[in-house]
């Protein structure tokens, strides 16, 4: 049974024995996604064949792109004697077939449970090969009994940076490059973020960058590894960047990240921001970029912001006072709530499948105290819990990924699809969430969803608003 916790009365959900219709995925998925966003990289999962195949299938249904993720393919012998030999064979075969620029190894629950020492396997593999013949091999520990796909994602970003970032010579030129750690956002968002940063006259080392590898053009020639992605040498140079910008308020409230690592070891200032969703959070990103670059926000963005405000005023009556349920990764939920609070939509239920970290505390900051008693925050929940909360809350709309469709259908409440996965619509890669543009796109979809609902429910069927 779900229990809704009011912001005024924070508790965590008691651990029910079974998870039903999970609102989370396993950590190797997040790691594989990060490695898919690195130029010339091949992800390698250290575990059973099913791990890579299921994850590939799940990602393909969203991104609709080739998704080669290799596997060390444990057998019974491997589980008894350890996965060292399989790791070696897998690396040999990947190097032969793909000639990669990097191999990203992520463990699975099986490899972790039998206690495989993956860093040692990699060291031994290196010993057997002259160093100029081998690409970098990054490894990240991602047992699926710890955390969710988001932990896997952030851990892989951190492992890649700690594995590749090299010490910087003190007399090198001050770089015009910044490190950008966007979190798990859509390829369209990644492209937009890159454009924004470049418009401030800065170069970007954005990690990961699957904007092209997982949302690419048709091929004119066969590509063993799809082109695009963060260049390995750019990651290696991350320690000499002018600053790091990391997105995600929950992430910022948590443990070590790639940005804090670079700050600690390379003295690269870490700017830890929220996902730029809505006006204030995008303003913050723009201000930080102004500070870093010394360049004023380009007129283009002032105009985008102006058009957004104009649209919000034009449409404010269709949304103000409406009630929404929001679910997904904690950082995305926080971002959506940032925006909803700016247009008067009450996020009556905010749910996430992961532990949530500081989500509740962050939402408490975002939302006006007088509304705290009307907002429930659910962390560590599944879709059965969320459904129960939706039933009680009777919201006007639901905002989240495709896996909420069955409950939205059952309860006849419209669903605005955002985030990952979007398995039942085309264009999951092209959904915009970030920047003024993203807020504009989101606003139009939310307002139109509410209008459509009202129009469909009307006996009259007016053709004007």
């Amino acid at each position, binding site marked *: 049974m779900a229990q809704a916790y009011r912001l005024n009365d924070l508790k965590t959900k008691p651990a029910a024995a*079974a998870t039903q219709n999970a609102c989370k995925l396993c950590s190797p*998925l997040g790691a594989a996604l990060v490695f898919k966003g690195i130029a010339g990289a091949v992800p390698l999962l250290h575990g059973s064949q099913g791990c890579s*195949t299921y994850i590939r299938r799940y990602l393909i249904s969203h991104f609709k792109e080739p998704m080669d993720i290799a596997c060390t393919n444990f057998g019974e012998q491997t589980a008894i004697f350890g996965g060292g030999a399989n790791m070696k*064979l897998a690396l040999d*075969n990947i190097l032969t*077939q793909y000639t990669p620029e990097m191999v990203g190894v992520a463990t699975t629950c099986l490899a972790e449970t039998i206690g495989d020492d993956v860093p040692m396997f990699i060291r031994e593999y290196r010993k057997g090969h002259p160093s100029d013949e081998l690409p970098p091999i990054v490894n990240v520990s991602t047992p699926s009994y710890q955390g969710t796909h988001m932990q896997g994602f952030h851990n892989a970003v951190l492992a890649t940076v700690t594995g590749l970032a090299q010490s910087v010579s003190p007399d090198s030129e001050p770089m015009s490059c910044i490190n950008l750690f966007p979190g798990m956002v859509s390829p369209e968002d990644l492209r937009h973020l890159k454009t924004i940063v470049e418009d401030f006259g800065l170069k970007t080392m954005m990690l990961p960058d699957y904007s092209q590898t997982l949302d690419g053009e048709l091929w004119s020639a066969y590509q063993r590894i799809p082109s695009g992605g963060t260049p390995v040498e750019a990651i290696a140079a991350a320690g000499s960047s002018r600053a790091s910008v990391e997105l995600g308020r929950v992430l910022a409230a948590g443990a070590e990240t790639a940005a804090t690592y670079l700050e600690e070891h390379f003295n690269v200032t870490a700017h830890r921001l929220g996902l730029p969703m809505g006006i204030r959070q995008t303003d913050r990103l723009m201000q930080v970029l102004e500070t870093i670059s010394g360049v004023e926000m380009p007129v283009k963005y002032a105009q985008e912001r102006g058009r957004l405000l104009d649209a919000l005023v034009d449409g404010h009556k269709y949304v103000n006072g409406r009630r929404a349920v929001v679910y997904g990764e904690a950082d995305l939920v926080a971002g959506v709530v940032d925006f909803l609070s700016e247009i008067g939509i009450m996020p009556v239920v905010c749910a996430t499948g992961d532990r949530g970290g500081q989500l509740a505390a962050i939402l408490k900051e975002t939302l006006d105290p007088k509304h705290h008693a009307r907002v429930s925050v659910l962390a560590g929940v599944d879709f059965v819990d969320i459904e129960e909360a939706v039933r009680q809350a009777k919201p006007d709309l639901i905002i989240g990924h495709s896996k909420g469709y*069955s409950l939205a259908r059952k309860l006849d409440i419209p669903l605005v699809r955002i985030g990952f996965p979007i398995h039942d619509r085309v264009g999951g890669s092209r959904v915009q969430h970030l920047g003024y543009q993203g807020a504009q796109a989101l606003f139009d979809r939310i307002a139109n969803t509410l209008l459509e609902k009202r129009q469909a429910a009307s006996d009259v069927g007016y053709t004007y608003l």
Partner: protein
Amino acid sequence: MSTIPILKERRKQIYRKGEAPFEMSCDKHSLAGSVSQRACVFCGSRVVLYPIADALHLIHGPIGCAAYTWDIRGALSSGPQLHRLSFSTDLQEKEVIFGGEPKLYQALTELIDTYQPKAAFVYSTCIVGIIGDDVEAVCKKVGREKDIPVLAVHSEGFKGTKKDGYKAACDAMFQLVGTGATEDIAPASINILGEFNIGGEAWMIKKYYEQMGVQVVSVMTGDGRVDEIRRSHRAALNVVQCSGAMTFLAEMMKAKYGIPYIRVSYFGIEDMAKALYDVADHFSENPQIKARAQALVREEVNAIYPRLQEIREDLAGKKAAIYVGGAFKAFSLIRALRFFGMQVVLAGSQTGNSEDYETLRDMCDQGTVILDDANPLELSKYIIEKKADLFIGGVKERPIAYKLGIGFCDHNHERKIPLAGFKGMLHFAREIHTSVTSPVWQFVPFRQKEVR
């Protein structure tokens, strides 16, 4: 474009018709580092049992295995929808260290109380074997307490291939067989095995047999019900589709209950008709059954034939690649595609055995590439080389085809459109036709280059 290399260890799993024949290597664990399109033992069990709609399917392990198989297939139920939900013990680090049995017990108990299923299947995932949970004991205990069959499925992902998962599922189901009431079972009666009711296929096929005067005691597992499986041991004949998945159960039922089985396929006009005639022949003491089958085939074929002919005009001469789970499906597809005048230039499967590959070799045209347990690079290499116009496969093959500008037909369990049976043949034709005749291909750079 650089040549796509073939791994040394994989060479015996690739054969090109016309070359000196050798016994293809197959039925073995996938090669580490080769991006196999196969899944694991768990996947094999999950696909077989998935459509049993009034059973609880609890996946014992960390969350991934359950999350990735939630509502994954187009297997329809005419009643309960319990199979479309996803249940996991969602093991955390604590359970990995101290054992997952208490959580499994609690989860099973709670879920059975909530959903009142007719039986429960508990799937072991990779780490369950390693941490040493006695799943069997927990299942027995809960079964006694709740008075329903609670069956352990030994599907640890690494303990073999997808085929071993089929076997584990059959082992679990076999414990149900023979435990139900058997009144009202006619002499001319069958069980349909290996038919999963994707998009309602089992309903169509069941109706064909019933029209012939043959009673269908159970469908395993399409639109499946626990009580039907329990009484399936009194059917006169097992009719088994999909060579890999359920032959194990048919063998066990033959050994214990003396039920003979035949292998059939419901894809394509020829194979569908044969599946009806073979059953009719088995019940030849009643010649009416055969007569009704012939009338049925005539009527059904007449209904679809004119439209199929129209479609054939557009498809004739096109080249197709087939990569599917079981080789038996590939045989049917080759015959069905030949009906349209199409040429099969690549045929492969995830789980074929050496006999299957011999059959494929005999069926295929010169130059056709035959693949066992292929990877995306191999599939790409040969569809490029063979200039395929159409790829028939599953979700994982689709983006390979599309990136290269090749049409695609999803023939896997996730599809929502029935492709079996006579009407299914028409759907199949439309599916292929819709893809191959799309005007978008004219803009595709890869194909344009070929034409120049």
